[in-house]
């Protein structure tokens, strides 16, 4: 509570201070609940981003999750260039996809994904030339563009949220008429253990982060932006502040160092930490005047406007006890995970689990050769010993999950309702508020799969609501 009071007002950059060499930054934004798991970032946090080796193939998925399905614009045997549009979205939520390499389309058909499903995909064999398509030209005179034009360029560039959820960015930027937004918040918290992709971007490409931020500010028409960074990355805070000082144009961009505390990177919690505002249940950030985007997304926007590149590359942290030489790699999206692991010296020992994303919210993939996506921020390989899971014991009602839930829910009770299939109870206990951060399962001394049960309950409640709506329609 004290933290919230202190962080309610965002201080000007000069008085914000930096958490540097033991000097603590004030105000130090935080929220109630949450945990501080071992960070495990040191093996890659100091390593510069390296370019990926040429992959033997890239697999561009035609099902984008939140943003829906795509239809292919190329056929088997076609030659494509790097940055050439190869698939267009079917629905309004979707964004197009581009070829990350120049080469030949070798297959269009079902491919195994990281989620274990079979989805339609375009497979391209690179020719090793990386010849850029002529459509990839920078945007000139950004200042003269309207908000709608900027948003449409971002959509056309295939940009989605790079933090992992892959929520289409143009949808976030398209605000309802009556929305009053005053702040753009750039999420540089990177609270997941192990991951250092965003950290390296902020250290190595702070100018692009700031540039992307300024374009995003124009897109939603605000004159204030804050980049929220966990205070375990003082070098990133420093680099960003220097870049802001050097930047000539654009509105006021500030950097806020916030407490290193999981799940600081949840957008609701970062808003709370930096601006002291709480997004009401069932509402979105714009209801409290904020739009949140990831630092990786900001860099993708800068790449499109300044370098003409659509979203075909991203930084991925390949790390964990099961990788010989952990690294941060600028990879071509769609590269099979195994090829990136091989670039990092291959497996160290017997791999038990390969996780796309971080250990708290990432998904364990069923095979090492599944393709990476726009949201793959990390490839975490755990060795067999670390991957062992334990049998859950009965709930002893210790309340650790309740104590640590950053949404202040009661996971133990939600799990109970889920086991008994009492979906109305689960809804009454606010299952839909769950952000699926996994803190409850992490804390549970009985090793119960709490967040999994709540996800299940959410899906059930959603299905029942849809069914009820359909009945109502008839």
């Amino acid at each position, binding site marked *: 509570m004290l933290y919230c009071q202190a962080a309610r007002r965002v201080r000007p950059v000069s008085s914000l201070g930096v958490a540097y060499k033991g000097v603590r930054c004030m105000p130090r934004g935080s929220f109630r609940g949450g945990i501080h798991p071992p960070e495990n970032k040191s093996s890659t946090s100091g390593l510069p981003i390296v370019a990926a080796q040429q992959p033997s193939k890239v697999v561009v998925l035609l099902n984008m999750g939140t943003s829906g399905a795509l239809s292919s614009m190329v056929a088997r045997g076609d030659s494509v260039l790097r940055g050439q549009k190869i698939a267009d979205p079917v629905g309004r939520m979707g964004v197009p996809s581009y070829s990350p390499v120049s080469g030949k389309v070798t297959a269009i058909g079902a491919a195994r994904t990281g989620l274990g499903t079979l989805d339609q995909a375009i497979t391209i064999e690179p020719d090793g030339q990386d010849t850029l398509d002529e459509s990839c030209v920078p945007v000139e005179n950004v200042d003269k563009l309207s908000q709608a034009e900027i948003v449409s360029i971002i959509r056309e560039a295939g940009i989605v949220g790079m933090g992992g959820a892959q929520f289409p960015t143009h949808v976030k930027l398209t605000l309802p008429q009556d929305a009053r937004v005053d702040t753009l918040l750039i999420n540089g918290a990177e609270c997941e253990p192990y991951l250092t992709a965003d950290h390296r971007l902020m250290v190595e490409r702070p100018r692009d982060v700031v540039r992307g931020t300024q374009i995003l500010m124009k897109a939603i028409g605000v004159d204030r932006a804050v980049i929220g960074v966990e205070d375990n990355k003082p070098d990133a805070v420093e680099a960003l502040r220097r870049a802001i000082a050097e930047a000539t144009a654009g509105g006021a961009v500030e950097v806020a160092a916030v407490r290193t505390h999981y799940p600081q990177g949840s957008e609701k919690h970062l808003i709370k930490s930096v601006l002291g505002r709480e997004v009401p249940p069932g509402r979105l950030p714009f209801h409290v005047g904020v739009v949140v985007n990831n630092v990786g997304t900001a860099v993708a926007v800068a790449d499109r406007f300044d370098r003409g590149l659509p979203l075909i590359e991203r930084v991925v942290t390949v790390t964990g006890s099961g990788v010989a030489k952990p690294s941060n790699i600028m990879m071509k999206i769609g590269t099979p995970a195994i090829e990136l692991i091989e670039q990092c010296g291959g497996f160290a020992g017997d791999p038990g689990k390969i996780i796309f994303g971080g250990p708290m919210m990432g998904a364990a993939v069923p095979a090492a050769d599944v393709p990476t996506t726009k949201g793959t921020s990390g490839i975490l390989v755990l060795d067999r010993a670390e991957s062992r899971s334990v049998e859950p014991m009965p709930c002893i009602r*210790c309340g650790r999950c309740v104590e640590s839930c950053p949404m202040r829910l009661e996971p133990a009770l939600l799990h109970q309702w889920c086991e008994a299939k009492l979906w109305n109870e689960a809804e009454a206990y606010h299952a839909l508020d769950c952000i699926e951060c996994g803190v409850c399962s*992490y804390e549970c*001394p009985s090793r119960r799969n709490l967040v999994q049960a709540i996800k299940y309950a959410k899906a059930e409640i959603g299905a029942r609501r849809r069914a009820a709506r359909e009945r109502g329609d008839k």
Partner: protein
Amino acid sequence: MADSKLIVTPAPHLRGNIDTPTLMRDVVIALLPACVAGVYFFGVPALISLVSGVVGCVGAELVFEKLSKKPVTIGDWSAVVTGLLVAMVLPPHVPAWIVVLSGVFAIGIVKLLFGGLGYNVFNPALAGRAFATAAWSALATTGYVWPASIEGAAWARGIDAVTSATPLTMLKMGEIGGTSMSRFYMPLFLGNVAGSLGETSALALLIGAVYLLWRTHISLRIPMSYIITVAVVTALYGQDPLFHVLSGGLILGAFFMATDYVTSPINAKGQIIFGIGCGILTSLIRLFGGYPEGVAYSILIMNAAVPMIDRFARPKRFGEVKARA
């Protein structure tokens, strides 16, 4: 390729380092100072009692689970906790077989019949004590003795020839009371008074409580709301609040029994309500009831109210408070 051997499980892929056996073992560690104090003040019979409690509880869990062909769960240390507590809440000079049977009742009836760890409604050790005092009322209540120390002996001698009365019994009988209660503070704090095996030494209990607080296994919400309520109510009734806090089983009950995870509310608001409820009931029994002490029954009664408290005392979720803007 290692494909076929990859493990796929739901997130999170990291787990904290505290598990249930660790928690229970820490509670055992936290109870040890009070056990040692009990043996120091009451001698070998206290040690026999403690061993009997553990044997009764762990043995009952082992035998009942074998008989019902269920997985044996004695490795989670929870039966050891119950065993120690059963002995600690009974008088130190109770025959060993009563302690064993109380333990068997606590585990067999109160815990396992309700579904085992996590499913019992009532605190097993306190239910075991209630069982013993009901079944062998004479035996279980005459086992109180004064420690063979100078202060204790002098205190007892100065009052009555009957040496088995606890300070709270004396208060109830009107043998002590009035304004000069402060001379009892130190013996009550150290523990050289008559009482249940593990309840007399506030000092030893607090050392264990500090350990549990430091390990973040318990919070101060239940103990403090409980103890403060007793202090306030007894003070309002014109009695010495500090005497009431230090005597009887209040410290043991507030820190080790009312905080029992399974039988107390799951969220902060509920825990405070629970503590206040225990405090009011304890005070009412001590001041107006037929018994001199009311900690055990207060907690058992409040245990029954836990499902209701959990249902109505709900935390404010994220974003709910700030709806005013």
